[in-house]
């Protein structure tokens, strides 16, 4: 009898311990999510005061002169990201197609491995690479060199998603096209790639989201500027860089500008992410 009670008691203890442990895991998940909301909430709270027409249409003012904006930095980031997309997309898509179609054997799997490892290289090291290759020889900073660093950061993402997208196209579609007498290149370019287009674009979106918030590789490539600049061969203002420079300055007005810039940046980056995610999900449910 006493044994039964003892067993029942330990069982109860185990149930309680189980419940408490599950609760603690929920707490961990909840606090991570809460941290995001906390940060987002604070950025909105601190940044909203800066947002206005002048902030979105003017260039930065010198210290002491109130007002000014980040318009040139927003345009600069847009130009730099656009150039990096133009640089990375053809190479990334072609390499992804290669891995998907011819990607068997040791060579292909080592390329995949190398690509995965490249995805983990710190962006600042890639910035140094861009500096040595495209800044040092020309002796001045340029948006092009920043875009080059971005392109290197984007490539692993584009290649991986393109390969998966091409592989997910049913083999019957490829075989059907070949059976109709289409050559391999036409089958790939006119049948397989169009079928995988949505997935490839999703990968492109993810890679754009990845680089848009990057600051480190721009420090000694695009460098930043206080003025309007449209020539990619020159140093160009960049939104993340502008936020960084404002934040580490000693001036409260500039800190305020940093929060405003952060709000714009976070909205853009989260929008790109959610867009890519929604595209992924809609395809997964199909």
């Amino acid at each position, binding site marked *: 009898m006493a044994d039964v009670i003892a067993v029942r008691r330990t069982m109860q203890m185990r149930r309680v311990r*189980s419940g408490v442990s599950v609760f603690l*895991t929920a707490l961990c*998940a909840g606090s991570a999510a809460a941290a995001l909301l906390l940060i987002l909430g604070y950025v909105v709270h601190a940044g909203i005061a800066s947002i206005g027409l002048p902030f979105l249409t003017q260039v930065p003012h010198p210290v002491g002169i109130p007002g000014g904006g980040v318009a040139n930095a927003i345009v600069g980031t847009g130009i730099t990201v656009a150039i990096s997309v133009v640089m990375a997309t053809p190479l990334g898509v072609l390499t992804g197609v290669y891995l998907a179609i011819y990607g068997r054997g040791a060579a292909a799997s080592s390329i995949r491995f190398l690509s995965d490892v490249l995805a983990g*290289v710190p962006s600042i090291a890639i910035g*140094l690479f861009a500096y040595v290759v495209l800044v040092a020889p020309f002796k001045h900073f340029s948006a092009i060199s920043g875009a080059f660093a971005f392109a290197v950061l984007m490539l692993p993402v584009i*290649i991986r998603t393109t390969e998966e997208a091409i592989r997910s196209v049913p083999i019957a579609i490829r075989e059907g096209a070949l059976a109709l007498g289409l*050559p391999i290149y036409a089958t*790939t370019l006119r049948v397989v790639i169009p079928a995988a287009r949505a997935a490839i674009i999703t990968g492109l979106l993810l890679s754009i989201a990845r680089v848009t918030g990057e600051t*480190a590789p721009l420090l000694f490539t695009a460098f930043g500027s206080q003025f309007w600049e449209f020539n990619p061969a020159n140093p160009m203002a960049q939104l993340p860089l502008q936020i960084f420079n404002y934040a*580490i300055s000693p001036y409260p007005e500039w800190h305020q500008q940093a929060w405003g810039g952060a709000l714009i940046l976070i909205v853009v980056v989260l929008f790109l992410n959610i867009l890519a995610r929604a595209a992924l999900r809609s395809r997964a449910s199909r």
Partner: protein
Amino acid sequence: MGEPAFRPRYRVGDRLFAWALNLSTWFYVALIVGLFTVLLAGSWLAIKSFGLHFLVASSWDPVTGHFGALPFIFGTIVSSVIAIAIAAVVGIAAAAYLAEFAPPLIARPLAFLIELLAAVPSVVYGLWGLFVLAPVMRSAIGPAIQSKLGWLPLFSGPIYGVGMLTASLILALMIVPTVAAISRDFIEGVAVDQREAMLALGATTWETVRRAVLPAARPGIFGACVLALGRALGETIATTMVIGNRPAISASLFAPGYTLASVIANEFTEATTQVYISTLIGLGLLLFVISIVVNAAARILMHTVLRNVEER
């Protein structure tokens, strides 16, 4: 005979196409190899002048030509190790909750929010860390820890707000989503039989996860943590904004520190001499090599698990 009766006209096109694909792929490989080569060439001057002594020298004074990387290596490793220690606990617990315990109605939005945490730009983390977390650290968290544990050298000395501990916390926050998302995939990949067997033995929900599911997913979870560690080691901007940027080795976690990535970020554009620039590129090369090793290890770990799962 020998000659086929029908010779496709498109053979040239296919050959060109295969050639273009090959070319782009080898260009990509050359790019990766070039990345290493260029960093090595850029740091050659520093390697030639200082040799390996550079890695263990602890004085950093560019004006007098003293370049020692030890404070940066120390700061990089300490901040990242503390960050992964925190992120591993929180991330694995969160993954277990999302994969095993949470009702779908809660799991989905929660997982979405945690994944978005990875999308927040690092400059925003730095901004938040500098103007929100650091003051709270100086006025509340720091003194609270010090009043209890101040006798430990780890928590001694003045609290500036910015410093090693603040940087570690921000880094932890940044890598939690990596740990959580990948661990979750591996936890969900554990066979249902394992759970059923454990439950049939009379185990509670928690015991099933703790004793059957997590051990089965362990190599993959470990790989996720190594991958996250790699991210923390190379993180630049957020760390630069909150670690205090002082090239000193201090026992106290409240003291300012410095990392490899931060010193490159701060000093590269101000570097005046060739040796100075070359030294900073050398630090970049060191960071590159560390990240390659860490990431390769993570990939190999996760790959083994995936293959085991497929073979089952």
